Each structure stands twice: as C-alpha cells, then as structure tokens.
C-alpha cells in the first residue's frame, strides 16, 4: 500500500478539475496519502489509473465482483468485492462510463479481509472495473452492469 501511495504522489502532480475540492485531507496513519485530486478528476478509467500509478494491471480471476446484471436503480447499485489474491492491500473501483470513473480506493491493513461492500451511482450501463494491489503488483477484472428505467417507485 505504501508503495502504491508513494507512486500516486509522484504521479499526481497537477491538480485537475476538482482542485477546488481537494482540501488535501490528511488522515491518521497515512500521513503521506492525500485524496488524489487528479485521479478523481480524470475523465477516463485509463487516465485515473495512470494518476494512481496503476500501470500494467494483469487480468485476474481471483477477484470476485458481486453486482446485479441489471440494476433496479442506477442511483444505488450494490457492489460486493472480494480479492482472493494473497497479500491484497487495496481495492480500487472504476465505473468506466461515469463522468468521473474513479470511485474509490479501499485499503486493507494486515488483518483486514480484502473485502468491501459499497453502493454506487451508475449514470448508465457500464463496466465496473476493479483493481487489486498485492505485492507491489496490480490485478484487474470487470463486471458489466446494466441500468434500466423502472416504473413508479414501488
């Protein structure tokens, strides 16, 4: 994780579109890690990954994404992610067709199961891409989620 974060800092020089909100919040235990303004401001998943230093991610079957094939409502799409790759230190999520695809990074210190449940907004049908960081390397997989228009609100 520390490695990832350092490369992030190196890569993330320029403050992008969202500079105004990147109040560089520091957190206990992660003194070097600031909220990555340029990654979060990137308009494509590829650019966001570059800003995060996540290059050469390798396709992996050892990351499980559980999300609906068709979301009932794009405003709240439940996503469960588990990495079965030994030594997974973080999981990052990219909703490829959202205006700002990078959705977040979840860090797992030693002793925390590399699993997270989250709920995200999907503007339209899109692949949800996950990158796991383990042993200084990156592994990736994606799942397609379709978004529909429903009825009158149940």
């Amino acid at each position, binding site marked *: 994780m520390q490695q990832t974060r350092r490369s992030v800092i190196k890569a993330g020089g320029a403050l992008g579109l969202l500079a105004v909100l990147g109040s560089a919040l520091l957190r206990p235990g992660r003194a070097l890690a600031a909220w990555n303004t340029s990654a979060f401001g990137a308009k494509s998943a590829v650019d966001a990954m570059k800003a995060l230093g996540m290059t050469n991610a390798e396709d992996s079957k050892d990351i499980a994404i559980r999300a609906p094939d068709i979301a009932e409502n794009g405003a709240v799409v439940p996503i469960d992610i588990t990495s079965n790759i030994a030594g997974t230190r973080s999981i990052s999520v990219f909703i490829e067709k959202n205006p700002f695809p990078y959705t977040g990074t979840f860090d797992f210190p030693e002793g925390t199961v590399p699993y997270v*449940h989250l709920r995200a907004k999907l503007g339209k049908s899109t692949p949800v891409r996950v990158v796991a960081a383990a042993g200084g390397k990156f592994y990736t997989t994606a799942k397609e989620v379709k978004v529909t228009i429903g009825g009158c609100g149940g």
Partner: protein
Amino acid sequence: MPDPMKIRATLQGDVADVRVLMAHPMETGQRKQGGKVVPLHFIQTITAQLNGRTVFSADISQAISRNPVFAFKVKGAKAGDKITVTWKDNEGESRTDEATVRGGS
C-alpha cells in the same frame, strides 16, 4: 452538525463483520434544484479503527450513493472491542461514531 452513523459490528468466528450507514447527501455537483446546480458535497475519506488501530480506510468520490453504506471484515476481533469510524467531506465537515463488537450466533 451531521447526523450520527449507524454502525453494527458482529463477530463471525474471530472476524468482525462491520456494517456502516452514513447520513450524507453525496451531491454530485450535477443535480439541479429550483433551477440552480447544487454544489459538490461528498465524503472523501473514511477510516475505521479497532481499539485505536486503523483496520480500514478509504478515499471515495461523489459517485458513492447518497447516504453511503459500507461493509468490511476485520480479523482477530473479540466481543467488547471498540470499533470507531470517521468520515470527512470536501467541505471539511466530519463525524466520528463508535460501536462495540458483539458476539455472533
């Protein structure tokens, strides 16, 4: 003052299943109300500690749903341990709440 979180931490063996509900509008900066754009307002960082040791942290974007829900799993927890969760948003507001790890079935 932001509304409190709801935190549930339940043991399954020696793994604590931690589930957190947060009250936050998570405004995307793209929604209009009364003809005006509602400015970006969203949680950026989350940290969780078990008895003071950081066990989970996250940086997130405005694409996380309104009133966020997260769940994660911490090994080596015991009934009675304290789990503390803190979030901070882009306007500098923050909120910290605590729960006790409970024995599971």
